[in-house]
């Protein structure tokens, strides 16, 4: 006679299985713990428990020191040297000459009056790009997150669709859009269907900047949407219930509940997107090559070209430009942190 298993059977089987696993796993866990304990206990006895924290962060500090701090210091040294030799000991010390070259300008708003005109074109283009791209990313990510947070049809599908471009290689993204925007491309085919005249979208100096902003927003907003979506989902639904009892409409919900509680997440999005925007290189390099002319050449491309692409590689000038970029980013981030702290205090 077949006997039907009751829940208590499953429970017993499960407990037994866990017991076996536990028996198997225990030595796997305990052995390393014992080994680590054997190493750490004498150290703790010697340095004291208060200082053990330093010991634990040491591996991370070493990695940071070797791969971040040391290159930064080396870059600082390179910025103070001239010539074209690669090794620091072969390079003559020139003090602040490279910075003087970068800042040798009659009128900072007119790059043609500057000795390093391409540096100032890069600065000007970077500022424009950052303002429009970061604004675009924050705005469109927020709108998309708000929509995807609602109970709409095929919500999971749309969440995947908006995130999908983030998974693509920047080169692939840029090549796809280049194909769309070229003169014999998809966009002009559509434009012509509607009877309008086709255009060389990337050759027009004004449109070129628009399109590099558009493509980078398209490619990256999925990531920031995801962060904002997580922020929206962490807002307790009771607050919306309370506000609806108080008679608040959708706008008031957004203005007085959503936005204040989303501000810390918005701040994270703002800082991350700002840093990414200032460092932007890959999408633009493939899409326009920094052109037409230098219209979409950002500061990072200037650093790359000066230091690596030219036959006579000016590492010192390139390092000085990257220091200017690094310091600008640091100032911007500190400013944002300060503003963020002020708004959270308010």
């Amino acid at each position, binding site marked *: 006679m077949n006997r039907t298993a009751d829940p208590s059977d499953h429970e017993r089987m499960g407990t037994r299985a866990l017991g076996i696993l536990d028996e198997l796993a225990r030595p796997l866990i305990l052995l390393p713990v014992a080994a680590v304990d054997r190493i750490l206990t004498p150290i703790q006895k010697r340095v004291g428990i208060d200082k053990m924290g330093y010991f634990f962060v040491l591996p991370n500090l070493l990695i940071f020191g070797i791969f971040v701090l040391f290159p930064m210091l080396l870059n600082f040294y390179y910025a103070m040297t001239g*010539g*074209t030799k690669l090794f620091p000991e072969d390079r003559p010390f020139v003090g602040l000459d490279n910075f003087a070259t970068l800042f040798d300008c009659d009128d900072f708003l007119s790059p043609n009056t500057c000795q390093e005109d391409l540096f100032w074109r890069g600065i000007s283009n970077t500022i424009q790009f950052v303002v429009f791209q970061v604004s675009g990313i924050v705005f469109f990510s927020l709108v998309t997150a708000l929509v995807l947070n609602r109970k709409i049809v095929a919500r999971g599908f749309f969440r995947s669709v908006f995130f999908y471009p983030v998974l693509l290689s920047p080169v692939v993204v840029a090549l796809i859009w280049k194909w769309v925007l070229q003169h014999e491309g998809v966009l002009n085919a559509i434009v012509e269907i509607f009877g309008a005249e086709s255009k060389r979208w*990337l050759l027009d100096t004004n449109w070129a900047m628009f399109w590099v902003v558009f493509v980078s927003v398209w490619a990256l907003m999925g990531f920031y949407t995801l962060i904002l979506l997580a922020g929206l989902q962490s807002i307790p639904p009771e607050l919306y219930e309370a506000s609806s009892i108080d008679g608040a409409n959708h706008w008031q919900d957004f203005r007085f509940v959503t936005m204040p509680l989303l501000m810390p997440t918005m701040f994270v999005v703002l800082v991350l997107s700002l840093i990414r925007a200032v460092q932007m290189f890959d999408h633009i390099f493939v899409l326009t*090559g920094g052109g037409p002319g230098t*219209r979409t050449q950002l500061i990072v491309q200037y650093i790359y070209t000066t230091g690596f692409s030219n036959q*006579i590689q*000016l590492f010192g000038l390139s390092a000085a430009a990257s220091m200017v970029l690094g310091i600008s980013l640091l100032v911007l981030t500190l400013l944002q942190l300060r503003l963020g702290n002020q708004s959270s205090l308010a």
Partner: protein
Amino acid sequence: MRKFVAILVVLSMLLAAVPAFSQDMVELRIRWYDDGNEGEVLRDLLDRFEADNPDISVEIDTVPYRAILENLPLDLAAGEGPDMARVTDLGGLAEYYLDMTPYLSDPGYWEENFGPFLNWKRLPGDDSSIPGFMTQLTITGPFINRTLFEQAGIEVPSDMSDSVTWDEWAAASVAVAEALEIPYPMAMDRSGHRFAGPAISSGAMYFDDMGHPTVMDEGFRDMAERFVNWHLDGTMHPEMWPLSEGYAGANEEFANAELVFYMSGSWQVGQFSEQIGDAFDWQTVPNPCGPGGCTGMPGGAALVGIGATEHPEEVARVMEYLASQDVLGEFAARTLFIPAHAGLSASGVDFDTDLQLAKDSLGVFVGQVGTLEQTAFDLQAYAFNRALFDATRDRLTQAMVGELTLDEAIDRIQDDVDTALAEQG
């Protein structure tokens, strides 16, 4: 248990013996880039070398051309380079080359057959080192789509005259493009090297009396003005120069019959034979003329030994094999490259193609060698010519999109070159 231990001991002894067996084998690495099928041909030739020389194994690391221009110099400066490399920045990297003279069985053969081109790979003041050999000699020059001329009912200018000017070619190309609604009348590789030939033909001197590079003359300005205007009025492919970074070519447009006249060079013959075949009549025409002559630019790529190699003798053996007349002749024949080898130039190369268009095209390029101006050879031999070429390319592009006036662009080219050379010291 004893059996298990015995097996372990035998295995470990075997493993230990493997490096001992392979100690006699020297592995050499070549950093290489491909324009066409030359990597495949080289591999085939090296397989034969390895069969006859079991103590040497040669690995080819094929990289994009950009990596040869940008990454290889850094690797060489850091002492991390390969044993051999295919380079086009011939003089610019000369300080890193291996002088193979002491390791060669017959240095005289190299002087005799590669003599005129060895200077391109030497440092100033050096007149004796043998760092490598040219894998090909290149000549810049224009290709036309003859079929389009015929379809448009327009005479090919070079059929009527031996010295056609740039303006005449431009007018004819525009006429063909307009008649057949072809998108691009003309295109030129995005390269200062490609621009140099037309500029010299217009009278550009490129060097002042002291031998310092200069672009401050009427000849250069004349061609630069013409070239910028052709981009503005649509005679030249309007996107290729303004919307690219570094080198760009119009191979696809030409192969797709969207381009009438394409200023490029002899290294394209192999590619066009593959891509176009006889789908339409493509043809090389003599370089257009101006007051300074009818010149293109010589150039080419060289396979050089790298000074930091730990195996100079083996490098020299590989190079001797590859540079031997028979092997180099086969390489040239199968890749459709013009050999830079006196013996092969004298005997001629039976190019390995049934395509008459390719043979004719190579014939025209070989015939152009005699028309090259001395300035073109001097410029090619100048170690820092790429600084001049790159500045020309980038600053003229800025003039095309209105960021600089033509005079500002020319001033900037000169400033860029002067600044870079001052840093170089």
